[in-house]
């Protein structure tokens, strides 16, 4: 069996376009998740008891089912509530749900790792609880969330492959379609693998750079 390098040129452009979709979907989803997570994490930490329980339950349920179930649910539920979105945006919505839940846990762990002492010092000075969190604890917590957050970005990128079941034209969907069209199996699998390794690898490298510059 010989390896046909020509396929890289032939299908490369399509695969690269798909890679761009993968990156857009992932970054958008995690970005939205980062917007939704702080209020939810705050509610989880210092909100009234029923709200805390509600957020906790939501987090545990989403974490406790396979991502395909979340994708299926979002796919069917959105039209029912009147939101008819394109495949791309349905995918973003589904990945955002999953990403938010993990981001909330990351944020909560980071703030709790700071210890009660910090909070008490802020309270003793006279800061009300919400300002204590927002202005004094959160900036410290931010430094601690970077490693787990980039890990989560890598997870979201890998999860985006599942969006092929709702026809989002990301790497796996396009690669799979190409395999069925052309029967070229190995070369396309290699292209898919390489694309993912490069994207995920870059995220890891970027995060290490960021960590180093934050520590300085």
């Amino acid at each position, binding site marked *: 069996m010989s390896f046909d390098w020509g396929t890289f040129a032939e299908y490369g452009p399509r695969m690269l376009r798909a890679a761009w979709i993968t990156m857009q979907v992932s970054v958008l989803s995690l970005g939205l998740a980062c917007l939704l997570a702080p209020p939810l994490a705050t509610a989880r930490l210092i909100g009234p008891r029923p709200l805390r329980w509600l957020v906790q339950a939501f987090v545990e349920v989403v974490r406790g089912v396979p991502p395909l179930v979340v994708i299926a649910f979002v796919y069917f539920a959105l039209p029912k509530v009147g939101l008819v979105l394109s495949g791309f945006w349905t995918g973003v919505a589904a990945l955002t749900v999953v990403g938010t839940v993990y981001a909330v846990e990351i944020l909560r762990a980071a703030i709790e790792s700071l210890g009660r*002492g*910090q909070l*008490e*010092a*802020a*309270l*003793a*000075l*006279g*800061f*009300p609880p919400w*300002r204590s969190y927002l*202005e*004094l604890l959160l*900036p*410290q917590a931010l*430094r601690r969330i970077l490693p787990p957050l980039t890990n989560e970005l890598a997870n979201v990128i890998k999860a985006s492959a599942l969006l092929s079941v709702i026809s989002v034209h990301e790497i796996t969907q396009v690669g799979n379609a190409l395999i069925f069209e052309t029967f070229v199996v190995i070369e396309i699998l290699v292209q898919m693998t390489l694309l993912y390794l490069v994207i995920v690898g870059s995220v890891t490298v970027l995060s290490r750079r960021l960590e180093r510059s934050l520590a300085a």
Partner: protein
Amino acid sequence: MTLLTLRGVVKTFGRFTAMHGVDLDLVRGERLVICGPSGSGKSTLIRCINRLEEPDAGTITVEGVAPGDLQGLRRRVGMVFQQFNLFPNLSARENIAVGPRKLLGLGRAEADARAETLLDRVQLRGHADKLPAQLSGGQQQRVAIARALAMDPVLMLFDEPTSALDPEMIREVLDVMVELGTGGMSMIVVTHEMGFARRAADRVAFMDQGQIVAIAAPQEFFDTPPHPRLARFLDNILGH
């Protein structure tokens, strides 16, 4: 001029009663030291004063603070913790200035100037830009004292301020506290440092099992203990 009044304060944690109905009065300018075995309720008492713990019964009144005004209370009462609890991402100056800037509305220049003055006062001139990690325990605690003073409190609470320090650094912190007291600050200090109590306190209180068992001027307290349990405690703590 009663600054602080406690009447019948009760605090329980689950089935454990930390405070069994405590009464206390403190006048302006008074320096009170509280000592006692662990679990006696000393830390709980001062944490109730600034409401880090919420009493289950009884009243606590600080002069000039309306009941229910939590923020006002905490601005008039400063607290120094056993574990210092400085904000690790802020420099010494920033730690001291953050309260005045964000809560008292001082401008940056004014707050920084106040911070510099206080750093001077706690013998830390020149360390303004250092992060807590770059300071020794004794230095961190002095910054913590300055941070509490920056809010211009009428009462300072100290929760075992030297218990987490290496022995060589205890003195520098106690000296700051003594100077604070002679300058007229009202303070309540929970501590095991009997030397400090003897030389700097107006009254010393002994707490045991959730109650103030004895309270007297240092001379009487140490030389002629007014209560047998206190006598035994002093024997144990000073005997070795």
